């Protein structure tokens, strides 16, 4: 028993290697040569826009889809391997929480939660009141006799969670479980889910397209794009040091500026750049920053430790704690979210010329292919300025 337990603890809870799945009739694979591990007790978030393959990956782990190539191991057991029929989902010892919850409307809450125990013939747990225990854990112990249609969205979500956890599966799969809740409830349930996971420590894969959810819940985040993992790392790393321009865009670096080098120095679509300049050999780089890290000032009032793009205000709108400014930089639209104190209201008029300022320490630089570029920032050389 101990030995088995130890062996299990050593093995990864979930291992995917070189998994590829192409849907019939599709030109490109939904998941493309995908490999990653999940350690026991870890919660890995698959994050990405719709169509990036995150749900397909989850469904391959569940056994609801079958990849054409690659292997998948669950708890040290190969459930998908070449030239072998995949292990059906019922025999994979999983729990899954569906986006639509998929609570069976003709069964009570107790019937729904107890179903995995009956299906897996865990009669001892049934009689030992495990259903009630799990229901209490997620806070729906008073709903056991109700039917799903009599529950609110949040309650349904809890029941679905209880059903996913009740049989103590090797891995619990979440398929965008919060996306059907309204914003306020979503925040609350997300918090509860986090507390529950840190308390119980179940191994888990969590699919979402919401970066806030991903950052809050994941031990690690795997950002996916076109069937591949773009970056898999600790949430802090993903947030502060995105591995590509795609990831940066996805975790909030929404404002984009293209810099091109000419003999006269760096310029943007709105003309020559001012302030600090990147030091690199590349002829062109892309800057990415979060709107809330930008500053908007009058043209002649530029701080010296910033990179500056000249622009014209399109619109400025009140956004509670800040002012949202949309500015046009020679056809490129820049979005900045500026604290009221740091913003001169007189600039809020459409057509005002402004300087949009970038803090180098909060700005990501990428090359044209979207790979991160290591650059230093410095004052422009006087020589370059003079055109010598």
């Amino acid at each position, binding site marked *: 028993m101990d030995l088995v337990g130890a062996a299990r603890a050593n093995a990864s809870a979930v291992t995917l290697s070189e998994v590829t799945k192409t849907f*019939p009739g599709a030109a490109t694979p939904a998941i493309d040569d995908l490999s990653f591990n999940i350690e026991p007790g870890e919660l890995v978030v698959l994050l990405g826009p719709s169509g990036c393959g995150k749900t397909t990956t989850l469904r391959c782990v569940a056994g609801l889809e079958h990849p054409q190539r690659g292997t998948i191991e669950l708890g040290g057991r190969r459930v998908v391997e070449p030239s072998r*029929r*995949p292990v059906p989902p019922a025999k994979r010892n*999983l729990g899954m929480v569906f986006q639509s919850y998929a609570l*069976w409307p003709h069964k009570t809450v107790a019937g729904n939660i107890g179903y995995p125990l009956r*299906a897996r013939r865990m009669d001892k747990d049934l009689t030992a009141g495990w259903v009630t225990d799990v229901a209490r854990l997620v806070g729906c112990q008073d709903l056991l006799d109700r039917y799903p249609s009599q529950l609110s969205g949040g309650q349904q979500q809890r029941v679905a969670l209880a059903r996913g956890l009740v*049989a103590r599966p090797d891995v619990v799969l979440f398929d965008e479980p919060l996306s059907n809740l309204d914003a306020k409830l979503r925040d609350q349930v997300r918090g509860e889910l986090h507390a529950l996971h840190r308390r119980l420590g179940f191994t888990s894969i969590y699919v979402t397209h919401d970066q806030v959810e991903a950052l809050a819940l994941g031990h690690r985040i795997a950002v996916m794009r076109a069937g591949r993992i773009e970056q898999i790392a600790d949430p802090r790393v993903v947030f502060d040091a995105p591995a590509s321009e795609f990831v940066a865009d996805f975790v909030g670096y929404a404002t984009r500026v293209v810099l091109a080098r000419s003999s006269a120095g760096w310029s943007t679509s709105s003309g020559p750049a001012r302030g600090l300049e990147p030091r690199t050999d590349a002829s062109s780089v892309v800057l990415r920053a979060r709107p809330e890290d930008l500053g908007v000032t009058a043209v002649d009032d530029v701080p010296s430790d910033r990179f500056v793009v000249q622009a014209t205000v399109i619109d400025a709108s009140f956004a509670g704690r800040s002012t949202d400014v949309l500015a046009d930089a020679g056809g490129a639209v820049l979005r900045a979210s500026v604290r009221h104190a740091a913003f001169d209201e007189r600039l809020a008029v459409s057509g005002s010329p402004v300087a949009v300022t970038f803090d180098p320490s909060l700005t990501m630089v990428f090359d044209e292919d979207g790979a991160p570029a290591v650059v230093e920032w410095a004052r422009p050389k006087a020589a370059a300025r003079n055109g010598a």
Partner: protein
Amino acid sequence: MIAVGRRTRFVSSVKARSDASVHPVRLLASIGFAAIVAYLVVVPLVRVQQLALQDGAAGYSSAADAIGLRDAIVRTVLLASGSVAIALVCGTGLAWAATRLPARLRWLGVVPLLPIISPAVATTIGWAFLLSPEAGYLNVLWRKLPFATGTSGPVNVYTVPWIVTIVGISLSAFVYMFVRSGLSNMNEELVEAAEVCGSSSRAAFFTVVLPLLRPVLVYGGSTALLLGLGQVTVPLILGRREGVDVLTTVLYRFTSDAPPDYGAAAALGSPLLLAGLLIVAVQRAMLGDNSRFVTHGGKSFRAAARSSRTAAVALAGYGVVAVALPLGALVIVAVSPFWSPNIRVDLFTLDNFRELLERREIVDAVRNSVLLSAGAVLVSLPVGFVAASIIFKAPTRWVARTVDVLVNLPMGIPAVVFGAGFLFTYTRPPAVLYGTPWVILLVYVTVMLPFTTRFQLSAMMAVGTAYEEASHTSGAGFVRTTAEIVVPMLRPALVGAGTTMLILLSHEFSASLLVRSVRTQVMGTQLYDYWTTGSYPLVAAFALAMCVVTGACVAVASRLGGRGALDHL
């Protein structure tokens, strides 16, 4: 057999290499199922062709020599096109009217469906009692008007225009059914958007509603066209006196005359078969990309704010004409000692009903109808479940497609042709079932294949796969998932399909007509025999009894299925 086995093994191994997901046992089972359905559906149709072509296409030449064949063809086309034209206008109008019913009178929306529920044989005989030129009650009433003259007419129900009209009135119910469901699936905001953009409500109807209804109109219209082409009940009952024949009635005569000429009958079946397949093909082509017409979401279409009394009057009026009048005529004749132009209340009697119960063949026919319909429903439901599952889950694309085509074939082929095919197939080895109830049961199951499959398929699509997947990821296998999750969730659809089929089969006539035998009759065929030979009051009483039995089926079904059972129509 060996060849089939080898072939399936080959296929399954190919499949296993390309996609590991299909379990070979499941694939074999679905191929076996497809083979059984193919035998049921295709063999009778092949047999029809075979008979028509044997002896150097002797069937075709003797059919061509039949007196009045050209007239019969012309009349068939006339009957089909005329009745469909009536049905399209009437049915669409009624469906539009149903959206404008005042809230209190919403129940009137069921009225136009009554002709589907009530036995066509009975109501057609009712029409004869109403509009027969000499003794028809409505004709008599008309002649009582001061300016009317003559001793017969003005309407002769036994002529082509009236046969077309009566078929048209009953087919309106089918068009109504499709258009009503189309309207209830239509997002009301689409119409409101047109009105906000400046269309009048009439313009909105013609520029938005009607174009969006195209699929249901094509669907309802082609269904009505198929039913009109294959129509045998009305022309057989009303056409006899003036010798008005259509293809189906000529076909029937070839099988029922002594000696029968199966070859000629088969030859007459082929144009109907071809026309049916053609209509289905055109229908599919015209519908094309259905996603263009998906208007789901939002509120369903309802013009509640503009409810109108005229709408209620139109629906009620249709109910009176299509059902109440013919049934009323049946009642009067049934309680009279004889059918005469003058209604003699003083002579009213229940003797005819007493006599019904004493006639063994009538009691037998009723029993046969009830048992065979119920039996066919019990067989059809699991068959439809398997068919729908195969189509829905598509273990392999070509198996799913084959099953889809096979189960829908009976929709495109007139029931009379199917009946004839079964007659020709099961009067000879390997399975001589003619003369037994089994052949009727088989025909019923076959004719109901499209209904049972579509009902359950659309329910499966509505339910989706997530519930089933949740069961699988909870550790439940195929058996438990089917028994505990899938079937309970399909219960409303199963009840709805069962109800509909029970009602349709309890008064099935067209297919039964060909496969019944002297000893094995069902209600409709026995009633028809009485109409051709028996006394009118007894016929009327029997017709009413048939309505009562069908009504009892409706009652039992809606009891079982709860209130919603009939909504599935």
